[in-house]
């Protein structure tokens, strides 16, 4: 059996833990730079505020309905997520953290427990200990656990936020209830195709011919079908290191100078380097790109990317920043207003298996240096130690006008209690 534990409206719930006055009120959370809506509370969903919409288009609706708007506070969300995951890991030795706010638990060998009660205990404990409400779906397969979770979330009163699919009857009833486009792993394209042949529910999908599914949806579709039929084929995925890491941003305003872009690209490559070090990888290849604003027809357009093969694998801030700047200088053209840039690192090799080359090598002195920088940045806040060509104050600052305090990770920002 598998359990899928999913936090309800996670980002909004994180804000509410420290602002109980916002319980029951509409909340939206905006992306980096306060651009788009990336999370909504149920109340905001009820106002028909769509996911991903540009925030400025909804300013009127926000004020009219007293919607609380927050800049994404990823420090807070990350900390609350790790608290939730820590608690969950005490409920099963096999846990797959599927995203920041959901995890699969493998419950093999738990058959002697009453799984309904077990699910209730997980639900109650996480909600009480962290203040984040969660829903739990338990079923024989991962895909069915997803379905069960959806039911628990949709009917919190009836299910007490826990739903267990433990009989053929419940499985069929659940699948008949679930629309095909809401099935985990069915994209918009496939949903359209399935609707066209009158497959409207998850149940209809499980009645399809294997050969049709294989032909039209490949092996992934077939596996999903079997999983929904109650035959476990999707297992927990071991934590996989990412195969490429991208750091890209749109700028608040247009940049025309090489120096401004250099600063951005340096910062992006350092962010990539930090992520590489976290997963103990080095990269062998890097892409840098710059774009003008494609929505501004009145401005001259230019967009260009360049992939550079690195002479040696590295995850050093200094080396990656140097390569990124060299790459940028190759593609930069004067006379354009740039709106977006990015650095993507690729072709990873493990830190430990780095092959030494005869003439050119990553500077071994950078390894302890980077460790020190990481330590300092970890204890004194992000980006306290920077390279010389990174000057955030001079050129760029992320727009985060509605950022909540880092209540759970920074002593200067904890809740103040009037006594």
């Amino acid at each position: 059996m598998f359990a899928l534990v999913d936090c309800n409206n996670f980002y909004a719930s994180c804000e509410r833990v420290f602002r109980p006055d916002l319980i029951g009120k509409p909340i939206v959370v905006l992306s980096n730079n306060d651009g788009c809506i990336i999370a909504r509370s149920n109340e905001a969903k009820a106002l028909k505020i769509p996911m991903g919409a540009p925030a400025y288009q909804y300013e009127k609706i926000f004020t009219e309905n007293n919607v609380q708007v927050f800049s994404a506070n990823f420090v807070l969300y990350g900390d609350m997520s790790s608290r939730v995951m820590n608690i969950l890991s005490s409920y099963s030795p096999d846990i797959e953290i599927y995203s920041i706010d959901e995890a699969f638990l493998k419950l093999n060998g738990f058959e002697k427990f009453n799984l309904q009660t077990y699910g209730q205990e997980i639900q109650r404990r996480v909600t009480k200990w962290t203040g984040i409400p969660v829903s739990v779906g338990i079923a024989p397969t991962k895909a069915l656990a997803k379905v069960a979770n959806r039911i628990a979330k949709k009917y919190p009163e009836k299910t007490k936020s826990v739903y267990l699919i433990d009989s053929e009857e419940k499985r069929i009833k659940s699948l008949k209830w679930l629309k095909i486009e809401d099935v985990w792993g069915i994209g918009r394209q496939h949903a359209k195709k399935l609707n066209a042949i009158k497959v409207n529910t998850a149940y209809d999908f499980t009645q399809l011919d294997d050969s049709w599914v294989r032909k039209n949806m490949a092996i992934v579709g077939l596996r999903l079908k079997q999983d929904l039929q109650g035959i476990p084929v999707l297992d927990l995925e071991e934590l996989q290191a990412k195969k490429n890491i991208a750091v890209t941003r749109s700028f608040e305003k247009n940049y025309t100078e090489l120096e401004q872009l250099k600063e951005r690209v340096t910062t992006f490559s350092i962010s990539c380097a930090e992520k590489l070090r976290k997963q103990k990888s080095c990269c062998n290849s890097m892409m840098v790109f710059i774009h003008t604003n494609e929505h501004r027809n009145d401005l001259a357009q230019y967009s260009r990317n360049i992939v550079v093969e690195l002479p040696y694998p590295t995850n050093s801030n200094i080396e990656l920043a140097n390569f990124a700047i060299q790459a940028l200088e190759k593609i930069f053209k004067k006379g354009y207003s740039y709106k977006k840039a990015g650095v993507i690192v690729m072709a990873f090799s493990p830190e430990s298996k780095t092959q030494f080359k005869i003439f050119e090598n990553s500077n071994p002195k950078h390894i302890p240096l980077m460790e020190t920088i990481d330590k300092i940045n970890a204890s004194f806040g992000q980006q306290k130690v920077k390279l010389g060509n990174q000057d955030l104050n001079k050129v760029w600052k992320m727009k985060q006008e509605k950022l909540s305090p880092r209540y759970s990770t920074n002593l200067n920002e904890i809740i103040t209690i009037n006594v």
Partner: protein
Amino acid sequence: MKQSKKNSTTSLEIFSISSETALELPIVSSGINAGFPSPAADFTDLSIDLNKYLVKNASATFYGRVKGESMKDAGIDNGDLLIIDKSLEPIDGKIAVCYIDGEFTIKRIKLEKNICWLLAANEKYKPIKVTPDNDFLIWGIITHVIKSF
């Protein structure tokens, strides 16, 4: 660690500070014993970890800063740092971070039959009776107060 005290020739124990993120104070267990190997030598890397002492359940522990005087007789003063454990049950007599009608506050919980009272620790403040009309939530239980001098 009892052994180390018994064998120690000085009554003074020395604690030094490690600068890891967890504030650990390693115990130098054998004092200034010359020649005699301390039976506690194997334990030299045991240390006092204030985190371990103050934080029993890290996933459920949060911090808060006190502003105000209503709990001064319970030793909770303006500016103190609170350690709050959300996992603990609100039992009679515990001091809790409560949320009542739009605001956080700290009070001692007094439970009578079906009635919850919030008691201040300062004679100037009257007990609050929580009724179903209040928007009320017990947010967490205070386990420690840290004062700086």
